[in-house]
């Protein structure tokens, strides 16, 4: 079914490594919310087109209701720091969405929160509004590392935030960063352990990357030893995979681990080619084989400018299906690829990779052996050649 992404691009302070659209000019917030609501109001299912290159699509089955209204079963409010959103604004956003979309009763509704801006009062309101999943930007449970990353919270604040959130929610995710200088394998595992002790249900582990234009990039230029060796980073990642598996977490994507039935429904849509509609600054949408993205500066966004609008051709659809499918436990549907004109089993590397147990074929799908997630790009390129 369809998902909705809402972008809230404001932060109290920008983290050193962050390359996403986020701004600290909170005075812009009210105007932004107005424009965001406008954008939602202007959404019209009549404008949706279907890319005929798609071999299968779901129109008329469970994507629309009888009044041609798009059915939705996930909302993700990301940022920025969405926990800075005032409750009254959240209410308005939900009201607007309700007018335009038909929500499934069991919709997954996630909001990203920073541990330092979380209060019990807010949590209660979120719950009342129907939010049922929290994603906490913990990043580390080591004060030194948090300082290096430019985060505003301390490790004890992070744990406290989880404790607080647990009172209201039973689906809590945390983001953690791998690959910070000085990070020790066992210490990181202990950090994960402490989070699981607090009762988190979902853990995303991202590898720290130097992105152009960030504070981290500036520091890195002066000091190339700012980041640990790649091999070290991957070692910690591998250890993480094993540890979380032992603790009952399923790795359903390269960076994502969840307890049973706590996989993020919304995230999975990104990997499986389901529709999602993005609203807000720099938000991306994918609807029936069309990709689009809003501008990532305020004036262009307000004027309704798109920085991307493309109809994927068959080659792109094939590439995306392989690239995204192999990243997650869903794998890639061989029949789907064949309908697009690509027989992946004829790829020169396919049988070699199968022999080496790098990929496996099962139920007419191809899966990447999680042991090779660390070098997934390499494998993906080989399977597309």
């Amino acid at each position, binding site marked *: 079914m369809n998902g909705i992404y809402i972008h809230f691009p404001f932060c109290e302070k920008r983290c050193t490594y962050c390359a996403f659209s986020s701004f600290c000019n909170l005075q812009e917030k009210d105007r932004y919310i107005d424009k965001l609501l406008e954008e939602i109001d202007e959404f019209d299912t009549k404008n949706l087109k279907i890319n005929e290159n798609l071999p299968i699509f779901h129109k008329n089955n469970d994507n629309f209701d009888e009044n041609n209204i798009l059915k939705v079963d996930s909302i993700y409010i990301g940022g920025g720091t969405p926990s800075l959103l005032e409750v009254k604004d959240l209410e308005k956003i939900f009201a607007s969405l309700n007018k335009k979309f038909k929500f499934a009763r069991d919709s997954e509704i996630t909001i990203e929160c920073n541990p330092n801006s979380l209060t019990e009062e807010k949590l209660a309101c979120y719950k009342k509004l129907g939010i049922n999943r929290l994603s906490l930007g913990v990043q580390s449970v080591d004060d030194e590392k948090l300082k290096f990353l430019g985060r505003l919270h301390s490790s004890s604040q992070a744990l406290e935030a989880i404790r607080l959130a647990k009172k209201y929610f039973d689906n809590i995710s945390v983001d953690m960063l791998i690959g910070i200088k000085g990070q020790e394998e066992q210490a990181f595992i202990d950090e994960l352990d402490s989070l699981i002790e607090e009762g988190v249900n979902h853990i995303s582990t991202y590898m720290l990357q130097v992105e152009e234009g960030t504070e981290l990039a500036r520091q890195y230029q002066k000091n190339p030893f700012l980041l640990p060796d790649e091999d070290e980073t991957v070692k910690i990642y591998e250890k993480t995979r094993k540890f979380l598996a032992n603790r009952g977490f399923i790795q359903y994507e390269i960076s994502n681990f969840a307890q049973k039935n706590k996989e993020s429904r919304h995230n999975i849509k990104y990997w499986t080619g389901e529709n999602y509609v993005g609203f807000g600054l720099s938000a991306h949408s994918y609807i029936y084989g069309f990709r689009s993205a809003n501008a990532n500066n305020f004036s262009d966004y307000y004027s309704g400018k798109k920085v991307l609008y493309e109809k994927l051709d068959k080659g792109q659809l094939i590439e995306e299906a392989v690239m995204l499918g192999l990243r997650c436990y869903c794998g890639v549907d061989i029949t789907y690829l064949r309908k697009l004109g690509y027989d992946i089993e004829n790829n020169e590397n396919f049988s070699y990779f199968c022999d080496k147990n790098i990929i496996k074929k099962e139920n007419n799908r191809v899966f990447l052996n999680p042991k090779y997630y660390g070098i997934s790009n390499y494998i993906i390129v080989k399977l597309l*050649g």
Partner: protein
Amino acid sequence: MDRIKKIRNFCIVAHIDHGKSTLADRLIEKTGTLAKRDMQDQLLDSMELEREKGITIKLTPTRMNYTCEGEEYELNLIDTPGHVDFTYEVSRSLAACEGAILIVDASQGVEAQTLANAYLAIDNNLEILPVINKIDLPSARPEEVKKEIEDIVGIPAMHAPCISAKDGTNIDEVLQMIVKEFPCPKGDENGKLKCLIFDSYYDNFKGAICLIRVFDGKVKVGDKIKMMQTGKIFDVTEVGIFVPYAKQTGQLLAGDVGYLAGSIKNISDIEVGDTITNFYDPINTPLPGYKKVQPVVFCGIFPVDGAKYNELKDSLEKLKLNDASLEYQPEVSQALGFGFRCGFLGLLHLEIITERLEREFNLDIITTAPSVYYRVHKTNGQMIEISNPSSLPSPVEIDYIEEPIVKAYIYAPPEYVGAIMELCQEKRGIYKDLTYIDTNRVRLYYILPLGEIIYDFFDSLKSRTKGYASLDYEIAGFEKSDLVRVDILLNGEKCDALSIIVHKDKAYSRGRALTEKLKKIIPRQLFEVPIQAAIGSKIIARETVSAMRKDVLAKCYGGDITRKRKLLEKQKEGKKRMRKIGSVEIPSEAFMSILKLDDEDK
């Protein structure tokens, strides 16, 4: 006989960059051969590559008319290539002249090729007129340079014109000198036909064209002619001169310089230095000085994309049409597939050809490290010549190997003598002589293996002497040498395209440098890749490229997958330039990198 007295055949010789082509431009302009609006810089360097590199590769003769003291003269300028690779071509065009203008840069003074070219001109009994160029430069020191010429070259230079070819200063003086000082050609237009071929090129409509100097007799359309060295016979279909474009004249007489066409399909039928005579009324003895041109540097050229083999073949054929000295034959490499083993006159020639393949024919090619040819004397008494390291027989079959050596002359300011001697020592040079040319310049004379010269000698020389040294060399035969083949094994598999032949004493250090270099170049793969250097079955160096661990883009935020796609595109591009050897992928530049070991790893 007045006609021949009004002809002056001359060439311009110089060290590279001393202003040869610029002076040629000025002469053409001054004599009104071409209107100024038709001029483009370095007119005679017609190839894009020639202009860019500031070198002359192909010769272009030009006829100019010049009136001096009421008499009209016919001046034939024969431009010459200015690089040591093309010494033989230079010597043949000099043989077509009576005079040579020796240009010397007013600030640089006498350099290696100044001297080498001046001696070539002296060997050909030419009248030499020194000209001091670039007097517009602030650092010009014309009087000192004149003295240098007298001291070093040994020809009078005090009355040499001081010019600026760039600004057009004193060009008239040069023209008058050409008329007054250079002798007119000698020859009998009623005698038997005797012509020198000093260059050739290919014309799509007329076939191969000979550039000729007529010494005796005349040649006209309809004549039957014979090439005395190759024995080939042709009917003359067109003769003419260059002004500087080709202009038909119907005939050429003794003393003239021009071109001749005869429906010659194959440029290999025309050999530079050959003598043309009349088939029905031939002379008995050809002109002296003919040599069969032999390539001295070899390398393998392979298409990056194996499917482009035929395109590469066609392109080489087309280049060969215009360049008889290019040699190639098919070669199969286990590592690189089908390609060609190509022979060149020198490193510059190699560079020109590979660059033209890439630019003019738009081919992506892999070039293996250049090699010289070796004479391998086998224990069974047989002698074979090889230019490809992988064709070296196994050590037990080899009695001994000989390698080509050169006489090398290096000119430099005295303060660099130590550095140069050290370099020559490292390159297995044998010291012969050191002469002080004047207080500012010495000449070092070494015997060096050619194989060391082509292995980054020139670059090292330049960098160790801050660019002040210049080098000239000539092939001086073969010498017995203790050589071995170093093979490179990737993941235990020999990669034939990476094998090199080196002196035994250098095998270890070269093997180590090579494995270290390859470790840097070969990207990490799925599995660990050992890189080994071996002599026979003995491993002499080893490095390991550890297995790839990280190649993943982590965050895919808010459904933005465009960045992932871009990365994927980039990786796909990179993959195209990879070659697979067994299970190991190596980038195509690895094959040439063998050459660049020393400068980086010092």
